[in-house]
């Protein structure tokens, strides 16, 4: 994949966004789920970066944007493999950023590696969790979403995927040459370990 795009390209911008989720407690999760989540969410990014970054470094320009998660910064119950993969992605990205920080020049634009850490965002990946919460609270989909937001997204607003897109495009700009090794949350200030942020009577 990397080689094909490099031939079509060259590859200036790599966005490792592919990710999967399957929630289960540590007692219930199986090895196959662990392997799959680590492979897609972390190992794939390792392989694309180790192939793409040397070429970007050689050209003096590159932008790697890795889509981690607020769960690359904090934990929640029943997300062992997912949190491990996202923490790993944030850490790996910081290593990559350091190794390529001095590549290129101001003129060529440099090579940066950053993570975006979304919280609750309106995509199909969260639907199983929305359904589960709606069922648990005996409410409809909107009630399920509101419950999830109350728990971990103080803004109480879902993010629109287009908003993550805008930040990703901005990180690719030449003006962002000295923004590297970061993990930028788009989480409505949700970076807290499991807790009830909004009491039921709120």
């Amino acid at each position, binding site marked *: *994949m*990397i080689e*094909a*795009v490099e031939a*079509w*390209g*060259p*590859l*200036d*911008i*790599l*966005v*490792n*966004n*592919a*990710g999967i989720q399957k929630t289960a407690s540590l007692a219930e999760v199986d090895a196959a789920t662990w392997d799959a989540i680590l492979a897609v969410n972390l190992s*794939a990014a390792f392989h*694309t970066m180790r192939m*793409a970054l040397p070429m970007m470094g050689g050209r003096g320009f590159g932008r790697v*944007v890795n*889509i981690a998660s607020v769960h690359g910064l904090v934990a929640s119950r029943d997300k062992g493999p997912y949190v491990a993969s996202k923490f790993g992605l944030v850490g790996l990205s910081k290593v990559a950023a350091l190794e390529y920080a001095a590549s290129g020049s101001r003129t060529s634009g440099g090579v940066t590696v950053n993570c975006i850490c*979304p919280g609750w*965002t309106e*995509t*199909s*990946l969260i639907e199983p969790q929305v359904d589960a919460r709606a069922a648990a609270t005996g409410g409809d989909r909107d009630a399920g979403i509101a419950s999830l937001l109350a728990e971990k997204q103080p803004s109480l607003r879902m993010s*629109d*995927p*287009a908003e*993550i*897109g*805008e930040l*990703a*495009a901005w990180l*690719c*700009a*030449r003006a962002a040459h000295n923004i590297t090794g970061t993990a930028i949350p788009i989480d409505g200030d949700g970076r807290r370990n499991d807790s009830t942020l909004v009491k039921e009577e709120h």
Partner: protein
Amino acid sequence: MTNRHLEGRTALVTGSAQGIGLSIARALGAAGARVAVHGIATAEQAEAALSEVTAAGAPEVRFSTPTCATFRRSRP
């Protein structure tokens, strides 16, 4: 959307047939980048993603899947 600050650049976005990945592909296309879209998708989903990213402004797009099927479209 007239800020084409990524003109001349080529981007690869994994998992971009839908969701956040597709939105990122559209944003990069709107900024003028050529975009390689990659993900698990049927031919219909791939065509839809190609259309969306092209409509957003990408001068050229290509779509590949983990099974290595490739689709391609350029602006006329």
